[in-house]
């Protein structure tokens, strides 16, 4: 420190004067307004980045920009996933939307969720389809697969009614469920609107001994 002061005292007045005279040879003329305009035109600001912490200190600004880019990527991924789900094959969507089907017997007979042996002439099942996802939309296909024990008797008529906690759902029996002696049938349900707790009433009228399994899957509307 003292060394520098001594040296500066000895030399700097002379040196700085000489340096300034030398530096004065520099061409300092400029049209500042024109220069600023030209620079701004050639180098437009990256406003979308500058907007994110443009005046913040370096580490914070960088972190803010990293967060911005990460958020943008995440949004992109979510959008892709949403679109992808829309475009997924039916089978995949069904597995994504698969819920739980619980059935209870509300009419004479013996029935469980897995199956039932019916010895009476009438049976009514009330099924509740729970997806756990209230955003679930689309159609629903309920397959009623029955195995007739003796093969002689079967279901000769049936109805399907649907109620949903939200939205409008209707159902109809399809296939061969109305045929006497049918070994399987399906009830196709279709509707619109979100549902989380879908209740299904299935009435089967028949005679003889039979067992059946009720399974439900949710798939896209057809």
């Amino acid at each position, binding site marked *: 420190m003292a060394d520098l002061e001594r040296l500066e005292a*000895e*030399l*700097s007045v002379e040196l*700085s004067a000489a*340096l*300034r005279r030398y530096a004065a040879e520099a061409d300092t003329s400029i049209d500042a307004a024109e220069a600023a*305009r030209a*620079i701004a035109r050639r180098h437009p600001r990256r406003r979308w980045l500058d907007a994110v912490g443009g*005046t913040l200190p370096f580490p914070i*600004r960088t972190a803010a920009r990293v967060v911005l880019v990460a958020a943008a990527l995440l949004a992109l991924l979510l959008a892709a996933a949403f679109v992808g789900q829309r475009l997924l094959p039916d089978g995949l969507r069904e597995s994504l939307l698969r819920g739980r089907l619980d059935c209870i017997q509300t009419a004479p007979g013996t029935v469980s969720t897995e199956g039932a042996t019916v010895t009476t002439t009438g049976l009514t099942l009330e099924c509740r389809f729970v997806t756990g996802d209230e955003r679930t939309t689309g159609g629903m296909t309920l397959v009623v697969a029955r195995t007739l024990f003796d093969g002689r008797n079967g279901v000769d008529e049936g109805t399907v009614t649907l109620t949903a906690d939200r939205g409008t759902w209707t159902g109809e029996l399809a296939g061969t469920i109305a045929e006497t002696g049918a070994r399987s049938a399906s009830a196709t349900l279709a509707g619109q609107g979100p549902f989380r707790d879908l209740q299904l009433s299935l009435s089967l009228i028949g005679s003889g001994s039979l067992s059946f399994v009720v399974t439900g899957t949710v798939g896209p509307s057809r």
Partner: protein
Amino acid sequence: MYEVSVDARAAAAIAPAVAGDEAAFARIIATYHGDLMRVAYVVCGDNELAGDAVQAAWTIAWRKLGTLRDPERLRGWLVSVATNEARQLLRREHRRAVNELKVMADAGPPPRDPAGTIERIDLVNALHCLGPDDRALLAMRYVVGLDATEIGAATGRSPSGTRARLARLLRRVRKELDDG
């Protein structure tokens, strides 16, 4: 050397310039262009190179002005940007295979007396013996008038390290001038 109000006015133009106000940026250019050119000239020893370096420095300043945390450091920051550009430009120029010969193009104004001529020649010779970094240091200290703390902040050195280097530099310049 500088009126406080001049620096304060320029510092006040930072925020609008960062926001894209060309007129505010023009005020900053008008305030400091002379300093930048003089420093770059001492580093490069050539008006054209100095002009190129300072033009590049203004472009960088336009883009990165928002990163300047302390508005009071504007002058030192701009000088360091111009100095860096001048040094890099000089390095690139030295790598070129073809050297352009200048016929007294940058000899400067005619000296008033023979002693002045000798003084300039001695100084130019002494400067040529120094590297661009050292010339930049001298220019920042004795042309623009930055102190060791400002130079240290601009060059990434500690103030004490800057003082030590300046002292070594002055000894060397004195020796070159004495020998010359």
